[in-house]
C-alpha cells in the first residue's frame, strides 16, 4: 500500500534520514520504533509532505506521492496524528472534529464518522462543546485520534500517541489503535513505548540515526536480544 524506498532527508547539511525503506501493506499495523532523534518524526512528516525528501521515492498504491503538498497527501487518505497532538486548541471538540472532515469526501460522510467517533470515545460526546485546551492530556489525545478518524483515513499514521499520558490513558489509546486496525484501517505507529507498540503491531522497524537497523515481524523483534537490550532494558 505504502512503500518508502531509500528516502533521504537533509536538514541543512545534516542527514536526518540516510536512505530509509519501509513497507506498509493494506490492513497492517506497522510499528516504527527508535530513540529520540532517530528520525521517526522526520520520516512521518516526509510521508505527509510537510518536509521535502532529498532523495528516494514514496509510493502510495502504486503511484509516487513525493513532492505533493500536505493537503494533497491528506486527499489521498494518508492521515497523520501529529506528535504533541497539535489540536486547534481554541476551538471546541466539535469544531476540531469538523476540521478533521474538512475535505469534501470526508465531509460527505461526517455524520457517520461522528457517530463512530462517539462510539469509540463516549467521553468526547460529553465534552463536545468544550474548548480543546481545557481537556486533560488523555482527552486531548482522544480528540487528536478522533479528528483523524473524521478524515476517513486509508492509512493512519500516529506519532507518539502516548507521549505525556498517564499509563492508564496510554493503554486506552493503544487499545483504540488496535481496535481501529481491526476495523480495517491500516496503521503506521511511531512510538517509544516499544513493548506496547510491538505487542499490538504485526510488523516492526527499528530506526537508529536515520537508518533502519533491523526490521521483522513484531513478535520476532520482541524476542530479538538487541531490541531487548536497547529498547526494553532487559
Amino acid at each position: 500500500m505504502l512503500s518508502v524506498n531509500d528516502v533521504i532527508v537533509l536538514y541543512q547539511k545534516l542527514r536526518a534520514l540516510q536512505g530509509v525503506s519501509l513497507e506498509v501493506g493494506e490492513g497492517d499495523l506497522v510499528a516504527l520504533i527508535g530513540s529520540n532523534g532517530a528520525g521517526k518524526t522526520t520520516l512521518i512528516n516526509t510521508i505527509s509532505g510537510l518536509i521535502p525528501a532529498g532523495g528516494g521515492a514514496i509510493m502510495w498504491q502504486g503511484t509516487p506521492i513525493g513532492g505533493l503538498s500536505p493537503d494533497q497527501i491528506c486527499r489521498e487518505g494518508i492521515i497523520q496524528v501529529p506528535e504533541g497532538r497539535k489540536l486547534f486548541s481554541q476551538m471546541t471538540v466539535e469544531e476540531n472534529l469538523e476540521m478533521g472532515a474538512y475535505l469534501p469526501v470526508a465531509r460527505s460522510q461526517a455524520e457517520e464518522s461522528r457517530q463512530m467517533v462517539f462510539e469509540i470515545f463516549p467521553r468526547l460526546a460529553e465534552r463536545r462543546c468544550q474548548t480543546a485546551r481545557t481537556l486533560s492530556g488523555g482527552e486531548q489525545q482522544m480528540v487528536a485520534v478522533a479528528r483523524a478518524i473524521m478524515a476517513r483515513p486509508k492509512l493512519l499514521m500516529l506519532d507518539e500517541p502516548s507521549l505525556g499520558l498517564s499509563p492508564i490513558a496510554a493503554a486506552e489509546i493503544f487499545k483504540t489503535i488496535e481496535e481501529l486496525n481491526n476495523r480495517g484501517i491500516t496503521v503506521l505507529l511511531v512510538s517509544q513505548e516499544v513493548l506496547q507498540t510491538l505487542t499490538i503491531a504485526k510488523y516492526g522497524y527499528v530506526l537508529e540515526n536515520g537508518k533502519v537497523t533491523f526490521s521483522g515481524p513484531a513478535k520476532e523483534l520482541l524476542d530479538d536480544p538487541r531490541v531487548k537490550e536497547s529498547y526494553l532494558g532487559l
Partner: protein
Amino acid sequence: MNTVLVVRSLISGIMMGSVYALLGVGFSLTWGVMKVINISHATFGLLGAFIAYTLLHAWSLDPILSLALSAPLLFFLACLIYRFIIVPITKAKEVIVASMIVTFGIAIILENVMLLIWSPDPRLLTTSYTSKVLILGPLYFQYPRLAGFLMSLAGVLVIHFFLKKTYMGKAVRAAWQQPDAAQLYGVNLQRISMITFGLAISSAGAGGVAMAFLYAFEPHTHNLWLIYLFLVVIVGGVGNVLGTALAGLIIGVITGLSFAFLPYQWVNLLTFGLLMVILVFRPQGLFQSEV
C-alpha cells in the same frame, strides 16, 4: 455634568468607534492569521471611499450600494497582490518586518495613483440624506453617521459569522492556531491566506466608505486612519475580531467623550497615552488573542 451632552457624545463615540472597528478587523486578521502587518490596509479603505465617491457622482449610486462593485474589485486586486507580492515575502525570515516594508511600498504607490486620479482636494460623500437628522427627544442622529454605523455593525457581524460558522472560516481559524495540523487535514494554506487577505481588503473598502460618511478625505488621509488601525488592533488583541470591534467602540467612546469635555489638543494625547499604558501593562491587548 450635563447628562444629555454625555449621552450625545457617547452615541457619537459609539458610531465613530464602530467605523474604526470595521476598518480594523481586516487589519487584525491579516496580522494575526498571516503574520502580515498590512500598512496599505487603510489605503485600500481610502480607495473604496474614492470608488464610492466616483460612482456617486457619475451614476448617483448610493455609497453603500457601490460596495457591490468595489468589494469584488478589491477582493480580486488583493488576490493578485497576495499571489505576486505577499507570497514571495512569506519565505523571508522575518515575515512581519518584510510585510511592513513591502506593504508600505504598496501604500505609497496606491496613494500616488489616487493623487493622479482624484487630485489632492478633500472630498465629502454628499448624498441625498447627508443633512438629514433623526431626532429622538433630546438626541440627534445624523443619517450618514447612522448609515456608517449600521454598515460597520453588519460588516463586523458578517466577518464574525464567516469565521465562526462556515467551513472556510473555521479553516482560517485552524490555519492560524495550528498551520501544520491544518495542512495535514487538507487545508491549503496558500488558498486560505489568499481568501483571508481578499476578505480583509474588501472589508477595508467597506470601512473606508463608512469613514467617508463621517469625515472628509483626500489621498493622504489613510496615514491618519492607519494610526487608528494600530490603536484598535493593539487594544483589541491581534487576530481577535470581536476584540478588535470592542476596542473600536471603546476608543470611539473615549475620543467622543474627550472631544466633548477636553480641549481639542488633549484628545489625541489622551488616546495615545492610553495606548502606551496598554502596551506596557497588557501588550497582548485587552482581550484574549483568538480568532
